[in-house]
């Protein structure tokens, strides 16, 4: 995940790209420090650049916010929603925490991995289409088990329903 130390440092992308400029400035205006904008701006950047934060984007965001590359790297590895490597075209979250486990999340995980043609969670499947992530409680326990597909919540999910949802992704 972390690039080898003997490789050349990444060339920073020009951040923000003009499509994001206004939104970034708006975010910055909410806080007394530039660092405080790190989390929301990284989410924005990830969404803009194919759902992952490459070393080049990392360096660009770091420069823009006046923090070190390693500060950004520290955030990417700490928070579950960031991807520090290519994430496939679609991202599927399967909740694995207690209530969902009681309500059949184990089967959903297997189903998701099967559809994604992936051996394990956290790795993009063979055809580069899906990234399946194990997530902790998504706050939808009264309608468990819960799954997110590309940021959208689905509840009372069965293996059949999940297969349908994933097959509908292009």
């Amino acid at each position: 995940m972390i690039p080898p130390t003997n490789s050349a440092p990444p060339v920073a992308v020009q951040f923000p790209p003009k499509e994001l400029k206004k939104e970034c400035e708006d975010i910055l205006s909410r806080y007394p420090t530039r660092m405080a904008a790190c989390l929301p701006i990284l989410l924005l950047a990830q969404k803009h650049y194919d759902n992952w934060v490459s070393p080049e984007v990392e360096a660009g965001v770091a420069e823009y916010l006046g923090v070190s590359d390693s500060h950004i790297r520290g955030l990417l590895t700490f928070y579950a929603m960031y991807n520090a490597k290519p994430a496939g075209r679609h991202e599927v979250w399967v909740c694995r925490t207690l209530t969902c486990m009681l309500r059949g999340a184990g089967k959903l995980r297997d189903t998701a991995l099967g559809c994604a043609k992936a051996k394990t969670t956290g790795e993009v499947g063979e055809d580069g289409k899906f990234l399946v992530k194990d997530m902790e409680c998504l706050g939808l326990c009264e309608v468990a088990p819960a799954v997110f597909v590309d940021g959208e919540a689905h509840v009372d999910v069965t293996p059949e329903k999940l297969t349908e949802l994933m097959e509908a992704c292009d």
Partner: protein
Amino acid sequence: MASKRDKDGRYPETKILSKNFGVKDSWTLKVAKKNGAYKNLEKALKMAPADIIEEVKTSRVRGRGGAGFPTGVKWGFVPTESDKPKYLVLNADESEPGTFKDRYLMELDPHLVLEGCLICAYACGLSTIYIYVRGEYPKSQERLWGAIEEARKAGILGKSVMGSDFACEAYVHTGAGAYICGEETGMLESLEGKRGHPRIKPPFPAVEGAFGCPTVINNVETLAHVPCIIENGGQWFADMGIQPDPDNPRAMGSSGTKLMGLSGDIKTPGVWEFEFGITLRELIEQYGEGALDGRKVKAVIPGGLSMPVLTADELDVPMGFDALVKVGSGLGTATAIVMDDSRDMVEVCENIAHFFADESCGQCTPCREGCHWMEKIFARIQGGEGTPADLDLLERLFINIEGRTICALADAAVWPLRSIIRKFRHEFLAKMPGHEDAPASTETAGVGAS
């Protein structure tokens, strides 16, 4: 005290926070205003800030985020003589497993949440509100942003709140997936753009919080109670629920109403609002409609994942802060997780230990290493390779983890796990070669969470 049950023995709901949950378009300003939104803010703006804090103290409302700290007392800690900007950080992280109550408030009544925030901000002299919403709640974020924008346009937020000389701004700050950011100082670090590493206290946030400035941190539900306290007075709120025990200063009572929930092995999961006092059994049987057909309730964690488990014969306890502590558990978030008699408690422990191992921020050795060790030991037992010595090893681990870390995440890991291995010891022994015939009775296993 008169019983709150009706003639059929049913414990009634009391809809104060949840009164608008079923109303069409309840989240829009137009509908919210029709139902009285912001009239309590208007009233509060005519009161002296100190009188509002006094009213909240009188109400005895305690924090709904899990720790139960008296809210009025917390507000009183904010230094009035400080020329630094002061902040309100609303804890809308709701990442405690099994917990989904704040989501209802944010999605269905965001103006109530905002009104509570504004009254708090006015009372404590705070100029900016950050609502820290977990990244996994896109709809809550959307509804809160919508409410903020509507309020700003209507002059309820901004340079002159409802025409007064009180100025206040509000923003939603989005988390990115980390349980520990629900811990209040982890949340502050995260708000400042860092990893969510909890801080050593003191200094307490009221004095030195966000960006080094005085900061009030409250849970969503806590502040949603404030408008009705202003409307009806603190005494009205204090008269509801469970009264303090005059002989025990630590039993501060559980005043007012509370959103309570059920999930897991239950016929009707959901969230309801009650005056404190309903028992866990009533909640499960009258509102959850009991276990699934052919099943029996076996174990319940009364609030979230982080509290000691109660067995089927321990459910006649009122859902209240002090009553649950008295039976060796805790109210936590008051959203119970129910497990029935088909469940394998070793598997449950492995699942719980994995959660805490995954979510430990890694600063403290007992938590960072200990949670992983616990997970490995449970996996070993589950794989049929455990021995009774593993249970002793776990007990020693608990002692070396609990109370020895910066924040309470590590304690939160110990509490459910220790109570499960004590109350369901036979299930663990049954997986150990040569010990399968362990007694099935929980009595012989030394019941009791400590």
